[in-house]
């Protein structure tokens, strides 16, 4: 039950730009890092919830649905083995039901569940970035970038990102391939 030599997972391009920004003295403490982080998060969310799932969540948030009724579903344990739902969707539905049972409106319940999922995404990316940087640069430098990442994450308007995700539920799941324009060099930095 072993895994072999641990291999780092490649950091997506949008998160690379977050790192670049968090590492740049001129950007530290500014809104620019937060904006880049929100962009990267939005891409993650779109990958985690494909179009049909986003439409379903939007419909769920719009009006009380039978999905929230405890009689209409077998519960989270039955959902967890449901092959038609993605892993992210299972967790969000379970969390949304919990919030609904705690007397939140359907819209608030769905949005809060999605915000929680967004936080989990940010935490997973934080671990990945930390591991990736620790293999390359001094630990003190890693800690500087990570504290900037933490600041940006705490300032990010997650509810706003969730609203954007649900509002634009028919947008494509996969981000379009990034085109390198003459204004950008191969590292994606603007000249």
């Amino acid at each position: 039950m072993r895994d072999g030599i641990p291999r780092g997972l490649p950091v997506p391009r949008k998160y690379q730009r977050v790192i670049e920004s968090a590492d740049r003295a001129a950007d530290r403490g500014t809104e620019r890092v937060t904006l880049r982080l929100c962009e990267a998060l939005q891409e993650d969310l779109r990958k985690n919830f494909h179009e049909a799932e986003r439409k379903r969540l939007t419909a769920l948030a719009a009006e009380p649905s039978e999905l929230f009724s405890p009689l209409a579903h077998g519960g989270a344990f039955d959902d967890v083995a449901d092959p038609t739902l993605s892993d992210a969707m299972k967790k969000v539905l379970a969390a949304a039901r919990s919030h609904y049972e705690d007397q939140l409106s359907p819209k608030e319940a769905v949005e809060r569940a999605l915000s929680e999922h967004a936080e989990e995404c940010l935490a997973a990316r934080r671990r990945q970035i930390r591991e990736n940087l620790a293999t390359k640069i001094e630990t003190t430098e890693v800690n500087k970038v990570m504290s900037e990442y933490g600041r940006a994450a705490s300032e990010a308007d997650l509810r706003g990102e969730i609203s954007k995700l649900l509002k634009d539920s028919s947008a494509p799941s996969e981000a379009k391939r990034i085109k390198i324009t003459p204004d950008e060099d191969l590292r994606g930095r603007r000249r």
Partner: protein
Amino acid sequence: MRISNRSRPNASIIITEGKERVRNRSGRKICRDQIDIQYKHRVIPAFFFRAPTHRQVDLMRVLAGIAHADRRVKRRPSVCWGRDIEIEIPVSDPDFWSSVERKLIGILNILSGDKWLLSFRKARQLIQFPVQRELEFPAQGQPAMAYSNGLDSFASARLVASGVIPLGNQAPQRRNLVLITTGKAFNAQLKQEITDFGYSTRQVSVPFSIRRIGRGFELREPSYRTRALTFQTVAALAASQSQSDIVIIPESGQGSIGPWLTVTGQEAADLRTHPIFTALLSDWLATVLDRPVRFEHPHIWETKGETLARLVSNNIHCGWAETFSCAVQARHQRIKRRRLQCGLCPNCLLRRQSLLAARLSDPDSTYDSHDIYAKDQLLLRKRTAQGLLPLVEFAQIGSTPLISRATDHRIQYFARLVREDTNRRFPHNVRLELDDLERMTNKLAKTHKEELGTFLAQRPKTSLLRQMGEALL
């Protein structure tokens, strides 16, 4: 059609029987039953005290087919973690397997993070096994355990078999065990030992093997998350043949809860030894094996160091040094003498930390010394960071507001699953309220952090391991 390197990996695999010729749809990959998947005819009797039923043989085929597919289709982590895998398997009773396929797909999806599609067709011929000789091992109700020869399985087998720790709500008692192993040593014949501690263990290997290199393929995908399904199902099969309902998961809390709480990047949560996976598997196996199966996690709220300390305090720890925890293959070893553990991968670092916590002597000479990396500082830094970070991350599940909230969300989800499990598939020591689950998880992480801190402080001040660990912790 050319598949782009930027698209999600997908594959359709068909398992063919013998010299069967199938009409091959474009791009469908072939896996030949009894050639690319082989059954170990000399091991089968150790599992089945009587002739195996067709369903049990089908189960082996299904497991082997899934293992083959999981290792054959390479992930593309630069695009996404998941893959789309379709597999067609010949079975004796397609109707039965179709009726249980939904739950199996759900388990596979959650275990591997992929999207699986299974289909079953009627097998043309049934697999013939040699006629069973006499009944060698009468059913004695022996619990089974997947035995990796690592520290966790070694310690757990000793503690459970000696009656030091109870299983479920039963009073502690001595037990004989069936241990499911891998490795050539146990492939040829089953091995039974009466130990010095008054119990017997019977070691048997997984009753099938999959070829690594075959016609037009090489099994190269290293993640192989479905190995947990293979090992735990085979353990359940062994337990059920012995008229027992119990399968023991020997993993410590660091191995069961840790990887699930500290998901990294785009990877799917690692549930290989988590109770969520074993509860779902237990549900599915109850139908397939037609008898209840209970997975027990006796060490889930202990660190590996605490389990080892229990072993030492009961004076049943002799032989621990023969265990092997390292994840790194022998071809990567730098010192060319006897086989050594690398000392730097997460498994080795957890081993070293735990042995120190249990006050067992563990000299550095046991490991493929990292002094030899002196000429290659970049590689040393990389290996140290990759080995250390998983341990550091679990020690820091409450370190920042973001990480702390993400941890809380996961535990809340787990608590909800436990609460809504009406069939009581989760083991008794996990059936807890949210507050207790949070308390136990935090206690586990705190003990782990203390053990890790002690281990790092014990390294020389010049050690990169210490410098990096202390700066990150």
